[in-house]
């Protein structure tokens, strides 16, 4: 059986799936919120008169430049954490739905090596995340223009877009462990819980010197959410690659060896 057919089939399973549209809406909403924040910074008195800006927020907003570099930095930071969450949701859905919807037993008894399903699902998740990332580039341009930010150039936009794609890739590598939890626990609730746990873990380790060695923290550090001073060495990327390989191997091993007790 050609691997291509398995990949095409995995794509077709996404058709008319609500999660596809929900993820698109969530990503769009994330950029709109970033734009809204920019608008508040640009118009603090109007925001305050609408009750949108408290004293604390006023203090936080103060001193921030309201321009494209700030907006793009903000989008990339949100894309780091948002991408990690979204990628986890996608992985939990793509892998967990087969068990929740009772189709895993149909899939696993097919005359196809089970590892191909795992790899095809990872490819579909990656393509989905890439499409979402691609989508937010024009949305960012549109929202920034609507807010009236000055000075957009391709020299600003392209590095930010590239950084978003790298973040998507890093998120994907981390989220493969979510796929493993989904097949181990046969559903999508436990992997979603696991995702929340990893975000807490990322936050905790982000405050320590261990951050560059913890996969989920690495995503945050790369996005700049931990501050511009955070730097990553090659070791961090090795950790991310190892996470991907371990997650993929564990998922394949489970599908190959475990009884399907669905």
């Amino acid at each position, binding site marked *: 059986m050609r691997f291509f057919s398995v990949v095409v089939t995995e794509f077709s399973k996404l*058709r008319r799936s609500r999660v596809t549209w929900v993820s698109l809406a969530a990503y769009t909403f994330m950029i709109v919120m970033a734009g809204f924040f920019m608008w508040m910074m640009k118009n603090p008195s109007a925001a305050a008169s609408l009750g949108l800006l408290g004293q604390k927020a006023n203090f936080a907003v103060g001193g921030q430049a309201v321009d494209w570099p700030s907006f793009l930095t903000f989008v990339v930071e949100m894309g780091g954490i948002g991408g990690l969450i979204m990628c986890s949701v996608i992985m939990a859905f793509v892998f967990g739905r087969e068990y929740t919807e009772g*189709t895993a037993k149909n899939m696993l008894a097919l005359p196809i090596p089970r590892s191909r399903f795992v790899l095809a699902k990872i490819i579909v998740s990656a393509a989905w995340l890439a499409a979402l990332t691609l989508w937010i580039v024009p949305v960012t341009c549109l929202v920034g223009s609507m807010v009236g930010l000055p000075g957009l150039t391709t020299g600003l936009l392209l590095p930010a877009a590239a950084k978003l794609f790298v973040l998507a890739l890093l998120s994907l590598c981390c989220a493969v462990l979510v796929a493993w939890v989904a097949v181990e626990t046969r559903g999508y609730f436990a992997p979603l819980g696991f995702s929340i746990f990893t975000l807490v873990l990322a936050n905790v380790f982000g405050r320590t010197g261990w951050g560059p060695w913890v996969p989920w923290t690495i995503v945050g550090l790369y996005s700049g959410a931990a501050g511009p001073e955070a730097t990553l060495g090659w070791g961090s990327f090795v950790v991310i690659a190892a996470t991907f390989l371990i997650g993929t191997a564990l998922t394949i091993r489970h599908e190959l060896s475990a009884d399907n007790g669905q």
Partner: protein
Amino acid sequence: MSGDAAILASGLSKNYGSVRAVVNIDLDVRRGEIYGFLGRNGAGKTTTIRMLLGLVRPSAGEIAMLGSSLEKNRAGVLSRVGYFVESAAAYPNLTVTENLRVQQRLTGAASKSVDDVIELLKLEEYRHRRAGRLSLGNRQRLSLARALVHSPELLILDEPANGLDPAGIVEIRALLRRLADERGVTIFMSSHLLDEVEHLADRIGIVHMGSLMEEVDYRELQEKGRLAIEIEVDDVARAERVLRDELGFVDLTRSGEASLRVSDRGAKAAPIARALVGAGISLQRLIPLEEDLERHFMRLTGGGS
């Protein structure tokens, strides 16, 4: 390995911790036959089917299907097998056609086969309806259609009548019979419905508490079943002596405080009545029993007389 066997399993066992779900089952399903795998809920039917499909690893035993070892040639064997296990499952957001298209692509079947099975299972009017919006009966039809997309030589079906209305049951029964008779498809179907198995199966395996109690040809069972006669008398011990000594019966079992069952081949009601009355025994009832599948099953599985 028998070349005539569609399924040949030997010493098949599955343990979940200390629970013995399937105990040392041997199966020999011949090509072209409909084999009913009958048992109560929890008897081990689904676990056995899961082992046949490679969804559960046996704790012991070997499986060969269509002449090949499942362990050594999993893909080759399963490419010739159609199946559905337990519940009717489909991708709820995909239409009937799209669900079948998924199966068609993954099994490498011809594109036209999707339309063929839709027609075969009478799903035409639902072809564009999402699977999540189908009734349970139509979901069951979809599952059966999915199992048939790649024209399998062997069908392994777990409770195929579940969720179908009476008309649907008759239709599916006729379809399975046709598949076996006209296309030579071997059908291994589990059921807890005696009626379903009785109407369809050529041979029946009765499974109880994980063990295969008996493998029986349905026609043989019908022949055997005509031979029992149950009598109710005032003195069972004396009646037993009379039947043994005067009529030479050997297969006598007490089926109650005042009743006795004569299971000898050739036992007839009239000589029994004459002998008992002649011996001065009060004969209260004499009932020729036809042991149908239900009685046979209940007797084997300890569920009644």
